[in-house]
C-alpha cells in the first residue's frame, strides 16, 4: 500500500482562493538561481548595448604592448596583437548574443510551422515532414553546421544560416508532440462543436497551449547556440578575424596557452552566459510543470 498525498486526499469541492492569486501571472519562478541568471543576462545585454561606456579601449586596434598580463589598466591583459582582452571580451557579446537570439528565433519559427502542420494534419504530411526532421537530426549538429558553412563559405552570416538549419528539427518535434497531445483534449472537441474552423483551432487553441516546452528549450538552447557559434569560429568557419567573437578569441588564445588570459576571458564569458540561461530555463520549466498541474 502506498502513502497518499494531501492534494489527493482533500478533494476539490470549491475553488481555492490561493489558486485565484496564482492566476494573476506573478512570476513566482523568479527566485534563487533563476534570479541570478536573469540579472547576469540583463547585465550582458546592457553592456552590449552601451559598450563604449564600459571600456575606453578600441577592440580592434593595438592599444598597448603585446601579451601583457592582467593588471589594473588592462583587467584581462592584452593578446598577441596588443589588443585589450577585456574590451574584446565585452565586444564579443555584441556578436554572440544577437547571433544566438536570431538563430533561436528563426529555428523556433521554422520548427513551429513544420511541427504544427505535421501534428495537426497528420497523415502523409506528417510522415514526409517527420522524415525530413529525422534526416536532419541524423547528422551530428556540429558536423552538419560545418558542412553547410563550409559549402556556403566562411563568415558569421553563413554560420547563422547553418545553425538555423541544424536547430529547427528539435523544435519541430517538440511542437508536434505538444500539438498531438493538445489535439485530444476535450476543449478542442468543444471548439469543433461550436463550428470553429481548422485554422482558428490551430491558431487560438492549439498553439497557445503548446509553446511551453518550446520556451523552456529555447531558453536553455541559448547557451548551446553561443557554444556552437564559438565552436564554429574556433575552427575558423564562423566569425572572421579581427572580429572579437568569443570562439575565435579562444582559437587565438589556444595558440599560446601560457598567456592564459587570452583564452580564459572569453571562456569565462561563455560560461557565465550559458549558466545564466540554464538557470532561467530550469526555473521556467519547473514553473510550467506546476502551472499545468494546478487546476
Amino acid at each position, binding site marked *: 500500500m502506498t502513502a497518499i*498525498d*494531501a492534494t489527493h*486526499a*482533500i478533494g476539490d*469541492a470549491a475553488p481555492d482562493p*490561493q489558486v485565484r492569486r496564482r492566476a494573476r501571472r506573478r512570476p513566482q519562478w523568479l527566485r534563487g538561481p533563476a534570479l541570478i541568471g536573469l540579472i547576469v543576462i540583463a547585465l550582458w545585454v546592457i553592456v552590449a548595448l552601451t559598450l563604449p561606456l564600459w571600456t575606453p579601449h578600441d577592440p580592434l586596434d593595438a592599444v598597448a604592448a603585446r601579451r601583457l598580463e592582467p593588471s589594473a589598466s588592462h583587467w584581462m591583459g592584452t593578446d598577441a596583437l596588443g589588443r585589450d582582452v577585456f574590451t574584446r571580451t565585452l565586444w564579443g557579446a555584441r556578436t554572440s548574443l544577437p547571433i544566438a537570439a536570431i538563430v533561436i528565433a528563426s529555428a523556433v519559427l521554422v520548427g513551429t510551422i513544420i511541427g504544427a502542420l505535421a501534428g495537426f494534419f497528420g497523415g502523409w504530411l506528417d510522415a514526409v515532414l517527420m522524415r525530413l526532421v529525422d534526416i536532419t537530426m541524423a547528422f551530428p549538429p556540429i558536423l552538419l553546421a560545418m558542412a553547410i558553412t563550409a559549402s556556403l563559405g566562411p563568415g558569421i552570416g553563413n554560420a547563422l544560416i547553418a545553425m538555423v538549419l541544424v536547430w529547427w528539427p528539435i523544435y519541430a518535434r517538440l511542437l508536434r508532440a505538444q500539438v498531438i497531445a493538445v489535439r485530444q483534449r476535450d476543449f478542442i472537441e468543444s471548439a469543433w462543436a461550436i463550428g470553429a474552423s481548422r485554422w482558428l483551432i490551430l491558431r487560438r487553441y492549439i498553439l497557445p497551449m503548446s509553446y511551453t516546452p518550446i520556451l523552456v528549450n529555447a531558453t536553455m538552447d541559448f547557451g548551446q547556440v553561443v557554444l556552437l557559434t564559438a565552436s564554429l569560429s574556433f575552427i575558423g568557419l564562423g566569425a572572421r578575424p579581427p572580429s572579437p567573437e568569443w570562439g575565435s578569441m579562444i582559437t587565438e588564445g589556444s595558440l599560446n596557452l601560457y598567456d592564459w588570459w587570452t583564452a580564459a576571458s572569453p571562456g569565462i564569458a561563455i560560461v557565465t552566459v550559458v549558466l545564466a540561461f540554464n538557470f532561467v530555463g530550469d526555473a521556467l520549466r519547473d514553473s510550467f510543470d506546476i502551472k499545468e498541474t494546478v487546476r
Partner: protein
Amino acid sequence: MNGSVNEPLTGSLSDAAGDHRTPILEIEDLRVTFPSSSGPVPAVRGVSLDVYPGEAVAVVGESGSGKSVTMLALLGLLRNATVTGSARYRGTNLIGLDPATLRTIRGAKVSMIFQDPMTSLNPVLTIGKQLSMVMRSHQPDLSKSAARLRAIELLEQVAISQPARRCDSYPHELSGGMRQRVMIAMAISNYPEVLIADEPTTALDVTVQAQIMELLSDLRVQRNLALILITHDLGVVAGATDRVAVMYAGKVVETGAVDPLFEDPGHPYTRGLLECLPRLDVRHEVQASIPGIPATPQSLPPGCPFAPRCKHVEPACLEVEPVLAPHGATMAACSVMTRVPS
C-alpha cells in the same frame, strides 16, 4: 467525547455473530490536519465511530467531507499529515503505532480496497504474483507454491472464472470489475477482521457494482468480516449496510441505523441529500437541491459548517458548532433539529 456511537445494533448481523458488545474498531476524536501554504488545513475535525464485528457501516459524504482521509489516517497511509486522537483495533491504538507493528495489522487484520483498481494494482506483475506477495509478507512461512494455491482459491472465492489461468494475467488484461475482485481477494487473503472499502464501486458500471456488492456481502457473512463502506451513493448504502455515519466538513453530522436514518433523518444535510436524490422508482421533477457548494476544509465558516446552506438556520448556528445529540432513533449534530421541546 460526546457523540460516539456505542450502541450495538439489535437484530443485526453482529448479533448472530456473537460478541457484539465489544467493538473491534474504536475511533475516538480522530483529527487530521494537512500543512499548506496558507496554514494548516483541518481535513478531519474530531470523528468518533465504533465498528462491531461482522457489521457493515457506511461512511457517507461528498467531496471535501473527509471520509476517505479518516480511514487513510487510521491506517497510517497519509504523508505529511498530523493525526491525533485514537483508533483502537482490539485495544491497540493504530495512531502513532510504530511502523513495524502497524504493518502487521495493516493488510492482515485491517485491510483496505480503493476506488480505482487499475492504479492500485502493479501493472508489471501478474495477478498471481501480487496475491502471493501480499500473503507472504504477512505469513512468512507460506511457501511460494502454497501461496499460489491459495491465490487460486482466493480468485475462486471472488468469483473469477478460470482462476488458474487468471493467475498469470496482468492487470490490464482484466476488466474493471475483475480487477476490483482481485483487489478484494488481496484484501481478504490474510483473514482480516475489518475491511475498509473506499468507494469500491464508484468507477464501475451499475451491473458490475451489483456483482461486487453481492460479493462483499457474501464474504461478510462467511467470514464474519466487519465492513466499513466509504461512499457518496446512498442507494448502495440502503441496500448493503446496517449503520450509517454521515460526514460533512470533516465531522460526523449524523449517525444511526440505516432504517431510521433514511426514514427520519435529523440533520438537515442528510435530509437534503435524501431529498435531492433521483430515484429509479419514482418519476418526479427533482425539486430539491442543497443550495451553495459543499464546505471544504480550507474555507470553514464559524459555527456550524452547514449553516450557509441550511434552511433551518438560526443565529446561534453561526456561533457554536453543534455536537451529536439524539434525534428520534439517530444522533444528529444540529442544535435546531435536536432541540428538546420544553
